[in-house]
């Protein structure tokens, strides 16, 4: 066993207890600053943007490349088998396709009728790739590879696969942090599409295990809300644009107070396998103007 090497300290060394005190004070000061002001650490954000994000970008790109190659190798055999099956399916599908084409006309007509169309496709969107995830296990935030340089800003809504993912809460020149709606501390004001009843969608780490999000404070005195109803973002939310799909109600329970209801929602987005997202380049505040 080699002996412990002790170096002589430099001339201007501070005793460790004072260092601890100083650093603690810095932390407390930082916390106070973030609590009581809207200062969002933008110089720090910029700095780490240039130091850390390029690495994350690189690693995640390499990782994606490797996992894609691995998948390719593994799937080759399955693909050959599938190919035959698929050829058979093509025949079936051509028949179905014509049927669906007809349905599509009908859908378009209905969309116009409901004025649902404008809500999604009317917004200008930009695609972004997820390059890193929250380093802890308690919350589900992730970093995307676009930031203020690409015209993004805090509070912009993020969607994927037609459903709401979350919103941007922190931003740097080439990165942005997205807080997911399934986060334990996330509360989104939502609305049942069928009956226009408002509710609050509450993320929960416990429910996440089952792949659902909770909701509460649903005021449904006439019992019109049913399992399977669509839940979208409401008009009264000040952060989220209206009528973005959140998910479908999978369970409803009467609260103990007999006035409100709570339950569970199956999200429209597969949060486990999220890789690319769309950022809506409009915030709610802009639209109001």
């Amino acid at each position, binding site marked *: 066993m080699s002996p412990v090497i002790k170096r002589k300290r430099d001339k201007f060394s501070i005793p460790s207890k004072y*260092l*601890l005190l100083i650093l603690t004070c810095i*932390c*407390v000061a930082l916390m106070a600053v973030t609590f009581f002001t809207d200062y969002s650490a933008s110089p720090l954000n910029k700095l780490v943007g240039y130091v850390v994000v390029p690495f994350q970008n690189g690693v995640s790109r390499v990782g994606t490349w490797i996992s894609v190659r691995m998948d390719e190798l593994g799937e080759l055999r399955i693909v050959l088998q599938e190919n035959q099956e698929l050829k058979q399916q093509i025949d079936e599908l051509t028949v179905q396709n014509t049927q669906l084409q007809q349905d599509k006309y009908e859908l378009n007509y209905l969309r116009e009728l409901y004025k649902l169309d404008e809500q999604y496709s009317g917004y200008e969107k930009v695609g972004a790739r997820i390059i890193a995830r929250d380093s802890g*296990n308690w919350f589900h935030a992730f970093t995307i590879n676009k930031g203020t340089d690409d015209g993004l800003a805090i509070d912009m809504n993020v969607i994927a696969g037609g459903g709401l993912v979350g919103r941007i809460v922190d931003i740097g020149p080439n990165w942005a942090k997205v807080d997911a709606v399934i986060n334990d501390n996330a509360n989104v004001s939502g609305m049942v599409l069928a009956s226009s009843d408002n509710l609050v969608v509450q993320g929960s780490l416990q429910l*996440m295990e089952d792949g659902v999000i909770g909701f509460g404070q649903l005021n449904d005195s006439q019992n019109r809300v049913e399992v399977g109803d669509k839940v979208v973002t409401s008009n009264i939310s000040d952060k989220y644009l209206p009528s973005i799909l959140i998910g479908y109600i999978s369970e409803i329970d009467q609260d103990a107070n007999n006035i409100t209801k709570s339950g569970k929602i199956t999200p429209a987005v597969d949060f486990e396998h999220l890789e690319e997202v769309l950022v809506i380049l409009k915030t709610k505040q802009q639209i109001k103007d």
Partner: protein
Amino acid sequence: MKRNIILFLVILCGFVLQTTLFQALNFGGISPNILIIITVSYGFMRGKKYGMIVGFICGLLMDIFYGDVLGFYALVYLYIGAANGVFHSIFYQDDIKLPLVLILASDFAYSFTCYVLLYLLRRRFDLIFYFKNIIIPEIVYTVFVTVFIYPCILLLNRSADDVERGDNKVV
């Protein structure tokens, strides 16, 4: 100087790997805590002061990217680094038991602090659930990863030492 550059690169690598590679290698949504391994290792390898500074930087990185309040994780990691610095006097390079035990204890302390301050205070009382699903898996995974990462940190630390001593001789 060289040692500080190596230290900085270790932290950077740890953070980048933790947010990318180890998020992809998660088991049931749980990924190991590399930053705590780095903080704890430097804490007892180099003493209190280094532990504090490493912890502070690691925590600050987490705060900037994923924290709600700037300074929260920095404070938690700062104290973990400082606490591990106490064990500097009983540290032997060939012994892997001490690092494992310290990392286990530190990760537990970290997770528990996070639970109390970030969850319990928001009326999330189901302690057993969080223990079973977050805290214990994270500790097990982290300790497992330590077995592979700790020797690397040790090696880097030792080579930095050699370089440092070599420099001194020349001067």
